[in-house]
């Protein structure tokens, strides 16, 4: 009798496990199991505030109208890059749409990993491709086909505390040069207790320190590669620019500079630890938010220059559609909605104009309501983005696209490696010249791959 019971218990347990496994074959609790015949799109995207807004508005303003369910996966920037790289290079087809930057789009397009937007998005009703800011569209075009549609875009400019400048009795020119900025940094350094002159990213990373630093190199007349793919990292101009950048941080920069990236600098400016900050135009969203302690106290001027007329970078989070994705039509409908002017208006209505994913369409900046809501910075932002030239950002012809980066897959690890040494130089453990001479060797190896 007892023997039977144990036998039955074992059988039951076995059935339970097998049953669970069979069930497991169906997939998971998220996403596709709830599909039920409806169309759907799987979207992989970076976790930035604009994307969180998009997530919030999707059910009411997209799924309701089209019947397409959108399943989002959001990850922080580094993780999302790794995952997108893996997903797209394997053409795994788990995701239909991914958020990527103008650094990835041309390379991915060249590898055949993306679906062209020309058929289905560009010609979608009411999309109006001509409204997209020219440098944006240009930076995501490959062989006359558009492979990425911007969700929002940014340039770079100089932000400064108007009240501190007034107190110190100095004025900021509208189009400052880097030499002027260095002088101003010296004057406002310590103008208030605990306030340093300027914040510049010192955190290693091609997308951290080398975003602002490469624009400085550009305007000082340097470049990563000349048009024949000869590396120029140890050139006089590159060294001069980098030394200038590092010395400025050392003399009048934020404390803890070797670990300060975008987020840290944003906090520094918000909490009054620095008087100036040269960084992304996207910072305005946080700086001018209602709960920001520095709301209305910040002035915005164009990116500082030296040899060139303008020096803003060009960056966008854009949508790319995976060629192996299973829901191509639904994916195109999603992109045509998320990058549209209509979506911007939806955001304005539901969340307010300061939430609008701006920086991609000329019409945004012509809208009087946006002009009013973004009065302190909308003009400078538009000028920054419009002035960026992804084909010709410096004083010499370039071998490929890119302002604050070089659009080749090797650039990320090349620049990140060199930035680690420069970060050490900021901390005083090595010198800029040594770091760049070492970097030159690495850059030559990369350049040689492209010489043919």
């Amino acid at each position, binding site marked *: 009798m*007892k*023997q039977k019971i*144990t*036998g039955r*218990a*074992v059988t039951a*347990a076995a059935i*339970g*496990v097998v049953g*669970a*496994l069979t*069930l*497991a*074959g*169906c*997939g*998971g*609790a*998220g*996403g*596709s*199991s709830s599909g039920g015949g409806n169309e759907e799109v*799987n979207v*992989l995207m*970076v*976790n*930035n*505030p604009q994307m*969180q807004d998009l*997530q*919030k508005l*999707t*059910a009411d303003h997209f799924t309701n109208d089209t019947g397409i369910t959108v*399943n*989002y*996966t*959001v*990850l*922080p*920037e*580094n*993780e999302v890059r790794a*995952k997108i790289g*893996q*997903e797209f290079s*394997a053409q*795994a087809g*788990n*995701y239909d749409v991914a958020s990527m930057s103008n650094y990835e789009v041309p390379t991915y397009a060249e590898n055949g990993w993306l679906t062209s937007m020309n058929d289905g998005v560009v010609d979608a009703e009411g999309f109006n491709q001509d409204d997209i800011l020219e440098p944006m569209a240009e930076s995501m075009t490959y062989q006359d086909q558009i492979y990425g549609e911007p969700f929002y875009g940014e340039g770079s400019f100089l932000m400064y505390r108007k009240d501190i400048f007034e107190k110190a009795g100095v004025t900021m020119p509208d189009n400052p040069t880097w030499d002027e900025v260095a002088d101003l940094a010296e004057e406002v350094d310590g103008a208030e207790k605990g306030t340093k002159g300027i914040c510049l990213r010192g955190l290693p990373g091609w997308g951290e320190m080398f975003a602002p630093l490469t624009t400085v190199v550009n305007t000082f007349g340097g470049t990563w590669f000349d048009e024949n793919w000869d590396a120029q990292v140890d050139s006089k101009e590159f060294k001069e620019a980098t030394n200038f950048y590092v010395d400025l941080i050392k003399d009048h920069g934020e404390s803890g500079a070797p670990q300060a*990236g*975008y*987020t840290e600098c944003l*906090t520094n400016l918000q*909490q009054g630890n620095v008087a100036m900050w040269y960084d992304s135009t*996207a910072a305005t969203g*946080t700086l001018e938010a209602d*709960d920001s302690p520095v709301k209305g106290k910040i002035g915005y001027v164009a990116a500082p220059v030296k040899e060139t007329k303008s020096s803003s970078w060009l960056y966008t989070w854009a949508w790319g559609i995976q060629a192996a994705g299973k829901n191509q039509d639904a994916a195109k409908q999603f992109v045509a909605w998320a990058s549209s002017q209509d979506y911007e208006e939806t955001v304005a209505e539901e969340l307010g104009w300061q939430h609008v994913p701006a920086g991609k369409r000329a019409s945004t900046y012509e809208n009087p309501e946006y002009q009013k809501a973004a009065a302190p910075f909308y003009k400078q932002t538009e000028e920054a983005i419009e002035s960026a030239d992804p084909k010709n950002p410096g004083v010499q012809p370039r071998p490929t696209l890119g302002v604050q980066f070089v659009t080749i897959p090797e650039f990320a690890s090349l620049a990140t490696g060199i930035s680690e040494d420069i970060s050490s130089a900021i901390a005083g453990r090595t010198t800029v010249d040594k770091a760049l001479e070492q970097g030159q060797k690495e850059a030559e190896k990369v350049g040689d791959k492209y010489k043919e």
Partner: protein
Amino acid sequence: MSTPDTTESAGAADPARADSAAATDSAVAANPGGTGPGDADRSRQKASAQRRPGQRRIGKVLLGLLAWLTGLLFVSPLLWMLLTSLHAETDASTNPPSFFAPLTLESYSNFFGGSSGASPWPYLINSAVAAIVSTLIVLALSTMAAYSLAIRRIKRWSDVLFFLLSTKMLPMVAGLLPVYLVAQMFGILDTWLLLIIIYSAMNMPIAVWMMRSFLAEVPIEVLEAAELDGARLPRVFMKILLPLTAPGLAATALICFIFSWNELLFANVLTSTAAATAPVFLTSFVTSQGLFLSQVCAASLIISVPVLVAGIAAQDKLVQGLSMGAVK
């Protein structure tokens, strides 16, 4: 005079007990022979008995104080997380920290979809399924494997044990790409099935080692007696081995559950929209543009709750498992 002493030491024992869950595994692994803690205790008692009572009392108070301090030290990161999770984002990110900022539950409501509308439940369900099913499978298989390595020993059993151990020497990340490609070929990327297979395989060696040391403690005479009475293997398992090693089973199950519940690397790479687990969801709170400390703290705390509950539920068994010599 002796009354304050007892309360002091009883109080001091508590935080140490809370940490014992974490220590179980290492203690068992370090001490498979079963000798040790008992002997050390006895000699300590002998030594202290020779000292005078006053000295002994001060020593005990100091020891109690030390235990409290150590306990606080270990709990402080958790308390700090709790405090941060109850602050608003802007208060959570100030330097120096603002201890007395007003408390709010905003981060917790964000976790449950307040800001983005993303529900955490699918992720928690995925985690629960992957962790529980894989733990059951591991327990079933590892107990049987341990039986053949501890009681009815197969030939070259120690080689088998070392083979199992050697599979843990390959860094997990080295197996990531092959696993991804194979899973893609079989079309099981982003499914429960894949996670369960991976987690079962990942925990199997540890579970076999643990269960072997627990089964080795069971006196062979008990089994022989049962067999003489006519009990066959399934019955011996159900009626004798499993009850006798229940604390060991609990400890093994908890370890497996915690490892699978917390696993991030594989889950992050192998899942996308359908089978993503709670730790993957946790990373989605981190952003490079904006503040997230408070949200991440709140999310981490909520996601740790099941592990804590499991640990507390199995606490008694775990303590028994720690001093497994009791079976003798």
